[in-house]
């Protein structure tokens, strides 16, 4: 725009200098928009349309089904256990890796990434091999009347395994970039370990941490593969939301399946919203850092 202030006009001019001609630009935008519409907007709309196919009352009734409610409760419970634990593990691992030097550090980093490298189905299978009736610890568990596989503990364990890297991976680069000088300053000033962590380290990583927790939560609630292997699909008992969607769909209960799916979709949208906010704050924090330590 030629009418804008010079300070704003400069980036525009720069953009134009490296930009494409108008037809090419519109073509590229159209391709991107078509792709987004086909693969994101349309399926999203389809979920909602299918869910409300028989009206709001049918939708509501599908959600109030006792088995559905049990699935929602189980998913929330799983996330409520897995996310805080992974938060603690992730922060502890990132703190150790970013702030200290020790032998076997690269091994630890590789181990943290392991769940990303392994297929979720395999992760689930590992737990069956460990804790299942035929597994290594199976007989001992059966003797003591402890149920892990085809029960809630198995689902929580599988979810935790799959979502383990998310918090740590988010924090390690951030904490490494921030270095250890502020912590050293705190210790020289007489602060102990807890004081240093809660007053200096934690405030510096809060947005990155929130971002990691949100991702971790979304993945925990949406996990299918690993949970599917260890759950046993017992309705009302070991069915999470994702598994419940599958069961309902296979029974041709489309309204029920899409009603539950719409909840997961809603979760995804909320996650994206909070994530954008956290990212924006996180970026600002990085910018602040850039300004402060140029």
């Amino acid at each position, binding site marked *: 725009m030629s009418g804008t202030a010079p300070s704003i006009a400069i980036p525009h001019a720069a953009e134009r200098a490296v930009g494409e001609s108008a037809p090419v630009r519109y073509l590229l935008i159209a391709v991107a928009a078509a792709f987004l519409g086909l693969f994101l907007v349309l399926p999203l709309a389809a979920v909602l349309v299918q869910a409300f196919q028989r009206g709001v009352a049918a939708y509501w009734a599908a959600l109030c089904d006792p088995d559905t409610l049990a699935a929602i409760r189980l998913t929330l419970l799983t996330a409520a256990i897995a996310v805080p634990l992974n938060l603690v593990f992730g922060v502890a691992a990132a703190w150790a890796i970013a702030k200290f030097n020790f032998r076997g550090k690269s091994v630890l980093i590789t181990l943290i990434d392991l769940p990303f490298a392994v297929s979720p189905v395999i992760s689930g299978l590992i737990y069956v091999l460990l804790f299942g009736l035929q597994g290594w610890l199976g007989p001992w568990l059966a003797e003591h009347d402890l149920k892990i596989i085809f029960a809630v503990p198995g689902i929580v364990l599988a979810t935790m395994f799959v979502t383990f890297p998310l918090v740590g991976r988010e924090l390690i680069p951030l904490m490494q970039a921030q270095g250890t*000088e*502020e912590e*050293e*300053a*705190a*210790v*020289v*000033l*007489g*602060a*102990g370990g807890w*004081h240093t962590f809660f*007053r*200096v380290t934690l*405030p*510096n990583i809060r947005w990155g941490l929130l971002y990691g927790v949100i991702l971790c939560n979304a993945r925990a609630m949406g996990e299918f593969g690993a949970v599917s292997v260890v759950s046993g699909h017992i309705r009302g008992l070991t069915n999470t939301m994702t598994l419940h969607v599958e069961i309902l769909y296979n029974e041709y209960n489309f309204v029920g399946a899409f009603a539950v799916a719409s909840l997961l979709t809603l979760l995804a949208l909320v996650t994206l919203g909070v994530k954008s906010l956290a990212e924006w704050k996180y970026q600002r924090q990085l910018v*602040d*850092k850039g*300004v*402060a*330590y140029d």
Partner: protein
Amino acid sequence: MSIEVQQVSKSFGTFAALRDVSLEINTGELVALLGPSGSGKTTLLRIIAGLETPDRGAILFHGEDATARPVRDRRVGFVFQHYALFRHMTVFENVAFGLRVLPRHRRPSKGEICARVERLLQLVQLDWLSDRYPWQLSGGQRQRVALARALAVEPKILLLDEPFGALDAKVRQELRRWLRRLHAEINVTGVLVTHDQEEALEVADRVVVMNAGRIEQIGTPEDVFHRPASEFVFGFLGDVNVFHGRVEGRKAIFGALELEYPHAPPAEPQAARVFVRPHDWEIDTQPNGSGVEATVAHLNPAGPQVKIDLVVPTGESIQVEITQERYRALRLTVGQRVYLRPRKVKVFVGERA
């Protein structure tokens, strides 16, 4: 509080950062650790602070062994090169931090903390910025906040790691003078790490010149500048022209330059080097006996002294500084032939250390 460093060694992997370093710092003194990067000066400072542990040797505070004392119990003030201010805290909270983390029975009341922080911010002339965040301050202001924060816990020892290294020349000058005054006012034992010889000579009571993990010389700024103990110290403290040659009997021969060798002559010819500072040359347009012949290659009259690059017939170049008056009297031009005579030299005999 006095500091004693006793035969301290420290390695990082295969790199020996400190080799058997001993040093005594008296109460109330301001000592500069001066050396190039990798000389071990920062490592020594961090060992005194307790941020690193020495592999061998001991650190004594006031005659008491403090080698194993944890950092937080040493009660030293430490100022980092990149300030290390807590970025999510205001200036006020940064300075108050050391007081707020004191154990309850030693922690001052809220009002007292407030008063003390205010006083410190006045001392560093930043009381009007107490609500700002670090990123809203200039580099010089940040470093003064860092100083106030370090002083808040009333340390007996103040350690400064290249405190003005990241600032521009003008601000650095100002802060140097300000630090000098502050040190006189609050009477702490100070150790300052720097690679800037000018800074060390200007600020410190004593200068410790370090190189490759060892101490080369300890002395007053005057001592180390005018009576350097080694070639390294001579070369590090200011610009210098070095000539390689040999000592034969009563003569020292360095290419075109022949000098009387005043000390006991060695039995047989020995390798030697002569060091001449740029301002220790006499320059003349007429041949003057033993002078070295050279051609003016470049002139820089901008500054208190005129800097001249000269080339001798063998191709070596020599840096010379003369006064503006002398420059005007000589009426030098580029390409002109001149004759040089060193006024003051230092000859180091033997193989290079």
